[in-house]
C-alpha cells in the first residue's frame, strides 16, 4: 500500500521522557470549580442544581439531554454559585456551573452498584451510561453508545498507544491503575460480547509492556499488541489497520473490533469498583514552556492557570499554550479554561518564530496523510476556490491530525488550509 500511497504515518519526536518517570503531582481543587456544560460539540445540557444548592463529591449536577445521555458529577463538596460563560478548551465560550469548594470533600453516591460477575450485557451498557463514561482520549464520545451497535464484535481493542508527543497520561494511568484497567476491559468484553481483549501499546514502551504483561497473566483472553512508534498510531483507523491489516468505511465494528482508550477502560473500572464517575483526571502538563513538567491528578473543572501555577509557572514571556497535545490540541489565548473529563494534556512551549516559504510541491504531506488525502491538492483547490475539486478530494475525511503541517518542509499551515476547505465544503452542503 505504502508504495502507491505513501507511508500514511510518521515517527515524530515524543519528548515523553519529560513526564514518564517523575512523580505524579496531586493538585487540590481550587476555591472555585467550573463544570463545563459541553460534551464533544454539544452544549445541550439539563442543569440539575441551582444557585445556592449544596453539592457533594459525586453529586450529579447536569446531564446532556439530546441524542446522548451524559451525566456530569461534582468533584468537590460546596455550594453552587450559578452559571458562568467562560472560554472552553474548544475555543468557544461555554456555560460552566460554578461551585464554591468548601474543602470538606463530603461525598455521596450517585451511581448504582454493578455486580460485574452477574450483570448482563445490557446492564453493563446502562451502567456505563449512568456513570458518565466518555472517550477519555480527547474525543469525549459517550462510550455506552458505541456498544449499542448490532454488529458482531470479536475483539475489544484497548488503545494505549498515546501517539501525540509530550502526552504520558495514559501511560501513567495504565501503570498506576492496572487493576481498574483489567476490571474495565472485562466490563467492555461483556458489553461487546467479545472473546478477546487486545491492548495496543507502542513497541518503544518496553517497561510498560512488561509490566502489563505480568498483570494480565491470569486473563488468558487478554494480550498485548505492540505497534510502531509512529503518529497517528492512536487513531482508530491507523491502529486497526496496523494490527489487523483491515480497513473499514465508518466504524471499526465493521471489522468486528471495538476500540476504547485505556483511560476510558480505567474510568469504567473505577466506576464499577468505587462507584464514582469521572471527576478526577490525569493530565500531562509538559513542554519547554512550563517550569516543572509533570503529570497532575486534578479534579475536573480546575482552571489550567491553577495547575500551571502549582507547577512553577511559565518559563518564558512568550509562550504557546495548547489544550491537548501539540498536534491535535487547540492553541489557547488564555489559561482560564478548565479541565474536562476528556482533557488529557496541556502542552506549553516557548513561542518559536518560523518563516514559511513557497510550497515546493514535494508531496511529503500527501505521502503522510493518514486519511489517504492529498493535503497540498486540497490547499491548492481551496486557494483556487474550486469547490468541486475540494469535494472530489474528499476534504471532509480529514481528521485534522496535523501531520501535513508537521511534515511540510516549507513550514506552511497545510492543515489549516484543509480546515478551510472543509468549512467551504460544509457551507456548500448546508446551502
Amino acid at each position, binding site marked *: 500500500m505504502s508504495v*502507491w500511497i505513501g507511508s500514511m504515518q510518521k515517527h515524530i519526536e515524543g519528548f515523553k521522557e519529560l513526564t514518564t518517570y517523575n512523580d505524579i503531582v496531586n493538585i487540590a481543587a481550587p476555591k472555585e470549580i467550573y463544570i463545563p456544560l459541553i460534551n464533544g460539540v454539544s452544549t445541550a445540557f439539563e442543569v440539575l442544581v441551582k444557585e445556592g444548592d449544596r453539592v457533594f463529591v459525586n453529586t450529579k449536577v447536569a446531564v446532556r439531554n439530546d441524542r446522548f445521555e451524559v451525566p456530569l458529577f461534582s468533584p468537590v463538596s460546596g455550594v453552587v454559585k450559578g452559571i458562568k460563560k467562560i472560554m472552553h478548551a474548544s475555543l468557544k465560550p461555554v456555560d460552566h456551573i460554578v461551585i464554591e469548594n468548601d474543602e470538606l470533600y463530603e461525598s455521596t453516591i450517585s451511581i448504582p452498584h454493578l455486580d460485574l460477575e452477574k450483570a448482563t450485557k445490557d446492564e453493563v451498557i446502562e451502567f456505563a451510561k449512568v456513570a458518565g463514561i466518555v472517550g477519555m482520549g480527547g474525543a469525549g464520545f459517550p462510550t455506552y453508545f458505541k456498544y449499542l451497535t448490532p454488529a458482531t464484535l470479536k475483539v475489544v481493542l484497548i488503545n494505549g498507544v498515546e501517539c501525540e508527543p509530550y502526552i504520558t497520561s495514559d501511560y501513567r494511568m495504565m501503570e498506576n491503575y492496572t487493576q481498574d484497567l483489567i476490571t474495565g476491559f472485562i466490563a467492555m468484553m461483556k458489553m461487546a460480547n467479545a472473546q478477546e481483549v487486545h491492548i495496543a501499546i507502542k513497541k518503544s514502551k518496553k517497561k510498560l509492556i512488561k509490566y502489563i504483561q505480568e498483570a494480565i497473566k491470569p486473563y488468558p483472553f487478554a494480550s498485548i499488541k505492540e505497534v510502531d512508534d509512529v503518529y497517528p498510531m492512536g487513531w482508530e483507523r491507523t491502529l486497526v489497520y496496523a494490527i489487523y491489516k483491515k480497513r473499514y468505511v465508518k466504524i471499526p465494528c465493521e471489522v468486528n473490533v471495538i476500540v476504547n482508550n485505556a483511560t476510558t477502560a480505567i474510568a469504567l473500572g473505577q466506576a464499577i469498583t468505587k462507584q464514582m464517575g469521572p471527576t478526577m483526571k490525569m493530565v500531562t502538563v509538559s513542554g519547554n514552556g512550563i517550569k516543572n513538567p509533570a503529570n497532575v491528578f486534578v479534579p475536573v473543572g480546575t482552571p489550567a492557570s491553577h495547575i500551571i501555577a502549582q507547577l512553577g509557572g511559565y518559563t518564558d514571556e512568550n509562550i504557546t499554550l495548547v489544550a491537548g497535545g501539540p498536534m491535535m490540541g487547540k492553541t489557547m489565548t488564555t489559561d482560564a479554561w478548565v479541565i474536562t473529563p476528556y482533557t488529557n494534556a496541556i502542552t506549553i512551549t516557548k513561542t518559536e518564530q518560523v518563516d514559511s516559504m513557497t510550497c515546493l510541491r514535494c508531496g511529503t504531506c500527501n505521502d503522510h496523510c493518514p486519511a489517504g488525502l492529498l493535503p497540498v491538492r486540497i490547499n491548492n483547490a481551496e486557494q483556487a476556490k474550486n469547490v468541486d475539486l475540494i469535494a472530489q478530494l474528499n476534504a471532509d475525511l480529514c481528521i485534522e491530525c496535523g501531520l501535513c503541517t508537521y511534515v511540510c518542509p516549507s513550514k506552511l499551515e497545510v492543515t489549516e488550509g484543509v480546515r478551510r476547505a472543509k468549512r467551504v465544503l460544509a457551507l456548500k452542503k448546508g446551502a
Partner: protein
Amino acid sequence: MKLQFKVSPTMKTRQSTQQIMMLLTLGLMSVVLFSSAFYFVEYGMNYVVHLWSLLAVAVSVAVASEAVWAYFLKKDIVKYLKTSFPWVTAIILVLMVPISTPLYPIAIGTFFAIVVAKLMFGGFGHNVFNLAGVGRAVMLFSFGAAIMPDLVTSATPISSIANLGWVVKDAVQLETFLAQFGGISGLLFGWYPGAIGETSALLIMVIGIFLAVKNVLDWRIPVFYMGTIFVLSALVAAIQGLGIWFPLYNIFAGGAMFGAVFMLTDPVTNPTSASGRILFAIGAGIITMLIRLQGNYPEGVVFSILIMNMLSPMIDRFTDGWQLELSKKYVTSIATLSVVGALLMGVVGFNLQAVAIEEPEPEVPDITLSSPIALDQSASATQGVILSSSVDGDATVVLVEINGYKVLSGEYDDALPNKVEVRINTSTLKVVSVTVVEVKDTNNIGTKVDNPIFLDQFKDLDQTGSVDAVSGATVTSLSVVRAVYAALEHVKGGE
C-alpha cells in the same frame, strides 16, 4: 505574559526546504569534485580550471539574474535568493554539458533557464519545466556541438552505441566497444569522459540513496525510472539476443542515473502524489528508451524529463481523490502504462538493426589493370623463398617471401622483401586464393596489389595462366606473380 495564538498543530518537523536544498547542493558538489579529480588525473589541470570556470559563470549568471529580478520586484535580495536557490539549477546545468563546452553557451543556457523558465513562470515553486533541462535543451538547439578549441572530448558512451544502432552482437566487437569505457564496471565507476556529471553511475547512486534517506528526494522516482529503463532494455536484449550487458549499459552509461537522481526528482516539476510520481517515472523511462532506440538520439534523458514535466499537471489531476479508494485504479493504471511501454519497446526492439561501423569492410580502392604477365615467365627469374607450407584439407597453404623492388634495381638498397600466402588445391594443382601478407614496397603504390581486383585473377590458374598487372604497380604485381609461381612449383615438387 503573552499567549501566542497559532493554528494547530504547533509542532513542526525540523527539516526545512532550505536544508533540503543545501543537501542537494552538497550532493551535486560531490559529483563536481569527482569529475574534477577525473579530469585532473586523466587530462590535466587546464581541464579542471575550465570546469570550475563553467561553474563560476553559470552560478554567477543564475544568482545575478535573480538578484536583479528581486531588485525590480522591490524584494529583499538576500532573502529572495535564500528561498529561491538559483545555484542549484546552475550546477546541474554545468554537470550536464561536456567539458569542451565554451563559456558563453553555458551563460546563455543558464540565463534562459533562470529568467524564462523560472522567474517568468513566477519564481521558485512555480516553474513547469525542469530548469536545467530547459537550459540544456536551449544549448543543444542553439549551439549544437560548440566546443572549446583546445579541449577534446571523446564520444560519450551513449552516442557511441547509438552510432552502432544499439545492437552489438559480435562478441569481439562488443568487447572492443565496451573496453573504451573500461567495460560495464568501468561505466559503473565512471572513469571515462562524458558530460561532466554523467560519469560515475555508482557515485550518483550512492548520493541518490543518501538523499532519499534524508528525505530530499522521493526514492520512487529514481527506482521506477531506472527500473523501467532496465526492464525495457532487458526486453530489447531478449528480442535481439543481446546479453545482460545491454540493460546494464543503458542504466550505467550516460545521463540516465544523473537525470534520475538530480533532475527527474525535482519536486517542483513532479506530480505531488506517490502514485502520480510512479506514473511520471515510468513514463519518463519509456520515453527515454524510445528516444534512445527509435529516435536514435543520445539525449533521451533530457527530453523525456521535459516531456513528462509537461504532463505533470495532468497526472496530478488524474490521481486527485481519496487515495484509499483510488489505490486500485492506481495499480491498474501503473500496470497498463508498463504494458504499453513494453509493447512499444517490443516493436522498437524487433526493428533494431545493427549498424556495422566498428570494423568497416576494408575499402576497395579503385585500381586499373594493365599489361598481362604470364606466370611461367617467372621461371627464369628470381625464385621466391618458401617460408612455410602446411596442409589444410584439400589445400596446401604456402607462405612465400619474394623480393619486390629490391630485385629490380640497385637504387633500392634498403628495400625489403614482400610476403605472400598462396593457397593451392593439392590435387588439381590450381590456385585457390592469394593473400598479400606484407608489402614492403612503397606505400600507396606497391600496396595497391593488395586488392581483390588483382588477386582474384589468380583463382583457378595453374603455371600456364596469366594475370593483368596493376597499373602503376607493375613491379609489385610481378613480385606477387613470382611468389605464386614459386608456390605452385613447391607444391608440385612436393608431390
